[in-house]
């Protein structure tokens, strides 16, 4: 209480030459160990929410293109996400090639967005890059938007015949997944 004098200090509390007490060291060491331990425990608690092995395992699919006529498109799924496979007509290819890159929000040519030698096959995720709706325009009679490609009804994003964003809130073109032509009429996606 009022009469504590320095000689009554608990062992280890008297300052060393450099002003650091043994207890300071012990406090810092103990709190650090607990802190690091706590952080390490957090890792699995956070990581458990990431996609699990079975979700990641749905890696690749084969698509048969033989039945898709020029001007038609199909919708299929890959990794639980919808996918567009579109057979472009010569007009649509010409239309896409006629656009100058400086007009584009996310500049890419049709050639960059298709496989070499298969410019007529436009394969993209059917997931609007705005907030993830499925754009319209694959099935017959659906609204293809002002640029003749796809139209996302959720917030009005218009994509052109190369599925590039032209108007509306979406920031980027429809995503082209990795794929490979295994023959002239089959493609392996993923």
């Amino acid at each position: 209480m009022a009469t504590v004098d320095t000689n009554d200090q608990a062992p280890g509390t008297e300052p060393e030459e450099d002003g650091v007490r043994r207890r300071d060291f012990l406090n810092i060491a103990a709190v650090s160990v607990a802190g690091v331990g706590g952080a390490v425990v957090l890792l699995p608690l956070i990581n458990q929410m990431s996609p699990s092995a079975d979700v990641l395992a749905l890696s690749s699919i084969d698509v048969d293109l033989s039945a898709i006529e020029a001007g038609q498109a199909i919708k299929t799924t890959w990794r639980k996400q919808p996918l567009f496979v579109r057979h472009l007509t010569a007009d649509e290819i010409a239309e896409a090639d006629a656009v100058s890159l400086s007009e584009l929000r996310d500049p890419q040519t049709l050639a960059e967005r298709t496989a070499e030698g298969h410019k007529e096959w436009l394969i993209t995720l059917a997931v609007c890059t705005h907030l993830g709706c499925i754009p319209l325009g694959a099935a017959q009679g659906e609204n293809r938007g002002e640029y003749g490609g796809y139209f996302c009804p959720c917030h009005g994003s218009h994509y052109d015949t190369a599925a590039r964003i032209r108007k509306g809130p979406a920031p980027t073109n429809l995503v082209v997944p990795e794929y490979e032509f295994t023959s002239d009429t089959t493609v392996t996606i993923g």
Partner: protein
Amino acid sequence: MSFPWAEQYKPTNPFMRWMDDRLPLPRLVYNAVGKGYPVPRNLNYFWNFGVLAGLFLVIQIVTGIVLAMHYAANSSIAFASVEHIMRDVNSGWLMRYVHANGASFFFIVVYIHIFRGLYYGSYKPPREMVWLLGLVIFLLMMATAFMGYVLPWGQMSYWGAQVITGLFEAIPLVGTTIKEWLLGGFAPDNAALNRFFSLHYLLPFVIAGVIILHIWALHLPGSSNPTGVDVKGPQDTVPFHPYYTAKDGFGVGVILILFAIMVFFLPNYLGHADNYIEANPLSTPAHIVPEWYFWPFYAILRAFTVDFILPAKLWGVVAMFGSILLLFFLPWLDKSPVRSGKYRPQFKIWFWVLVVDVLILGWCGGAPAEEPYVMISQLASMYYFAHFLIILPIISRTERPRPMPNSITEAVLGTDESAAQPAAAS
């Protein structure tokens, strides 16, 4: 804490005395919502809405626990289990309709409660912490309601989840990783449904905890009142019980009548027919809209259509979250020492403009993403931000308040001493 003239808790019953020495819970209740809590005598019906919000939290928890007894959080059977609740479970339809409409009523009363605070300046010193905790509750409510709406696994559930988690993709660099982490997949699926159910069950209890802090912070200074004038003495207050237990009880009766009308006669009026179609990841409904209580924010999200330094999508997300985060700074944006809008002639006009503005935003948020709605939402979003960031700071300096009563009692009974007689107090 309470006013010095508060009634003291003095149990006469020997058991209650024994209890008071060991677990003074009855004392806590007495001092919080009983005779021991003096409250301004002039509160109007807008002061009912806090209690009503608490009522709806209780209704949601009770019906929610019942629903959880029959619901299955698995994407292959979730939709069917909700139909099972509707058709097979005894009184299941009632529990579900009460829960679904209870969420809407919860938001109705909370919105009125928030606008009450905005009009009467309840966010001003010394009640800033009450306001801030209230906003935390509001954010938690929105998260809870969003995840609850995903559970029936209908088309709106699924696409709502897709759109809302898609918001996180707007974050530069790490956005996609965060979205996949939140969903536990590339698109909403079983993993997402399960964690949403777990959190939907948890968050209401977190809300209950924050409500305790909210009321604790409130009970230090006590309630404000329609004049905004501080309590000066015992003549300005009446004990909570029986005065406000009775007034709140009346409000509870009125809201329950309205609630029963909705539940029994219009149970799906506020819902979307699309949510009675099972979730289909391959088909987006033509017109995705969230529940009505998110419409004003949804309109702000969609108001950004052109890139300006940052992508339009990021602006929309920032503005949407910003429109709520902004409210956390309100106590420091509106520096007028006068609390109540009643004595602030200019503030009062702008307040009503804000109310209309938020209603317009709500109307646009529910409409398709087409003109003229996009342009109207752009103008209305601009006003929303201008209201808080420009108009309020300016008028709080320039406006000349109207004369205020000297005390609550004077505001109620007038200055004339003889007016204090009950007969004359018309």
